[in-house]
């Protein structure tokens, strides 16, 4: 059983060393790889100096492209499971174990969810999360409590499917689409930290665009997609 922790990093020089050191020191059983997404700061240089496992993209591809690079690597190296893990320190490695246990029960995707046993706080961000939950519920009839959580683990079949297809970004609309297609998805309660340094990608206008894209995609576009399943060796 091999599990790969994929850490996409875009301009994370303030966080990357702390995050990877924590992962390496406390959880040496997991393999990891940093995907530097064409950062303009010294993220790649730091990783080289510290001799981290690094895939250095020469141009910026965006989160979907960077994460897919990690999944392609996992696919080629024959990993059984892969997990998306933020480079900004929001995700905590102590919950990877619980997610691994869950996915070995036979799920396709396990989401590290903030709201399985805990209640959602009321904020603008959570309003967005709720809207996406409702849209997912309408199209699939299933409840995903934390659809925007970036901490997601995939099994071998999903790794192949994500690695080789178009329109498989690590976003809630892909989750909704796969649910509709009969993929099995579970949620495991995790805790997340606030970002310590650096700036969040989401500002107001980006958030509005993101919400519009997600809702239109989940409620409308995903219903017309045809699935191309990938046979796993």
């Amino acid at each position, binding site marked *: 059983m091999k599990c790969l922790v994929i850490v996409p990093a875009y301009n994370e020089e303030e966080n990357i060393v702390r995050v990877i050191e924590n992962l390496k020191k406390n959880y040496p059983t997991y393999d990891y790889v940093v995907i530097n997404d064409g950062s303009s700061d010294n993220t790649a240089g730091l990783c080289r100096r510290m001799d981290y496992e690094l895939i250095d993209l*020469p*141009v910026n591809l965006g989160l979907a492209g960077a994460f897919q690079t990690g999944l392609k690597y996992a696919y080629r190296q024959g990993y059984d499971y892969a997990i998306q893990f933020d480079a900004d320190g929001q995700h905590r490695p102590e919950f990877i174990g619980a997610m691994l246990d869950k996915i070995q029960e036979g799920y396709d995707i396990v989401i590290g969810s903030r709201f399985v046993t805990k209640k959602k706080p009321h904020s603008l961000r959570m309003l967005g999360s709720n809207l996406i939950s409702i849209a997912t519920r309408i199209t699939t009839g299933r409840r995903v409590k934390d659809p925007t959580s970036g901490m997601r683990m995939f099994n071998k079949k999903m790794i192949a499917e994500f690695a080789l297809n*178009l*329109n498989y970004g690590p976003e809630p*609309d892909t989750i909704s689409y796969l649910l509709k297609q009969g993929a099995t998805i579970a949620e495991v309660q995790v805790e997340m930290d606030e970002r310590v340094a650096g700036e969040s990608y989401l500002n107001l206008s980006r958030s509005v665009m993101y919400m519009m*894209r997600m809702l*239109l995609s989940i409620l409308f*576009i995903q219903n017309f*997609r*045809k699935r191309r399943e990938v046979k796993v060796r």
Partner: protein
Amino acid sequence: MTPIFRILLIVVSLFTTYYILKRIRQSKLQIEYAIFWILFSGVLIVFSLFPWLVSLFTRMIGMQLPVNFIFLLFIFVLMVKLFFMTIELSTLENKVKDLTQELALEEKERRDEQKRLLEETGPAKDTEAEVID
């Protein structure tokens, strides 16, 4: 708006939507790019189903004919879209250039490195190096 014009609008917008969805279905179009066109054809459908909306806007800005308002609106929207596409194209071209250069430089550096190793270990392992490459 004449009934024929309305029907034409409805048919065109439905066809556009159908075509976009077909391309997504065939996995040939990224959803990010489809969203603009789906919204665009959505507006077309709304305008053809509720022409009083168009008349309202037309009167609001003091134009004579609703058709003119539609022309003006769509020309403007398409111009903006075209401009953003030019920016995207330029970014894309730059990325392809960077990638090509990166690949070529990597390859050159790798060959240099190999040549250096070969000189250090002597020419005896010449054939072996060929195989590795």
